[in-house]
């Protein structure tokens, strides 16, 4: 009689553990309430463990208890992982100012690079008269012009020296 009652207790614990574990699992996956699911998860594990010890003593079936224990452990792990998820997001939020600074620096660099190769055109209109000034600040062109000018200067110097 007493053994039957212990068997029933084990089975009831198994049912309670399984139900708690299933509910915990569903809530653990929802990020809003996932962290709170740690508590029922631990309760499910405790219930299943107590039920298993009862079942070991009375040789009663353990299927529900093992299912409850496994689902409970997985649910608690998922729920606990939410702590890391929250931590990671918070860390990411802290890094945002640095990221924005990097973006501003990148944009500045791009603008300066673009300006190096820019073509500037100024057009002035006064009645019928129109004056247009076009210039290029292409870095390559400027370097070429500078080299040409230096070359001309060198040849002029050589001619002067030869004449002397």
């Amino acid at each position, binding site marked *: 009689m007493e053994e039957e009652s212990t068997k029933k207790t084990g089975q009831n614990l198994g049912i309670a553990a399984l139900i708690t574990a*299933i509910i915990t699992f569903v809530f653990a996956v929802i990020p*809003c309430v996932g*962290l709170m699911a740690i508590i029922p998860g631990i309760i499910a594990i405790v219930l299943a463990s107590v039920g298993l010890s009862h079942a070991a003593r009375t040789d009663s079936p353990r299927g529900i208890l093992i299912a409850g224990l496994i689902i409970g452990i997985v649910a608690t792990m998922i729920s606990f*992982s939410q702590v890391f*998820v929250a931590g990671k997001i918070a860390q990411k*939020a802290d890094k945002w100012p640095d990221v924005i600074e990097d973006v501003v620096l990148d944009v500045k660099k791009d603008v300066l690079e673009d300006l190096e190769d820019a073509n500037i055109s100024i057009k002035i209109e006064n009645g019928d008269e129109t004056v247009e000034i076009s210039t290029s600040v292409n870095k390559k062109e400027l370097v070429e012009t500078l080299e040409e000018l230096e070359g001309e200067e060198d040849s002029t110097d050589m001619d002067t020296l030869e004449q002397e």
Partner: protein
Amino acid sequence: MVRFVKKPYVIVNIVLAGVIVMIMIYSAIFSPDEDEYPVVCIHEKITGEPCVSCGLSHSFSLILRGRLNEAYSWNVYGMRVFLFFSLQLIMRVFFSFCYIKFIDTRKQLIMMDIIGSVLLFLISFRQFFIYIFQYC
């Protein structure tokens, strides 16, 4: 009938159906227009960033009131999760009935229930899983 209600499978089904009904009652009691939901997003409190499940209570309340477009705007996945709970409620009643009615096919019935429920769960909560595991 009482003999069958004492079976573990039927007890689990009854309790789970009760939990789902409680979720529905919770969604029906709290009005989405007054915004007085007792459950707040812990994630948002910690990080200051809304998570993928924010607005789910609002969405459930609006679905129950038939305002589907508004529900969709509160949470994109609200409809999917609500359908999961609704289908689960039907499944708990259906499988319990079948368990009592067809005694010879109980094992197959339980296996079908487990496989069906797991698949349904994975499909409905897919985005939540992705959200959690992208940071892990």
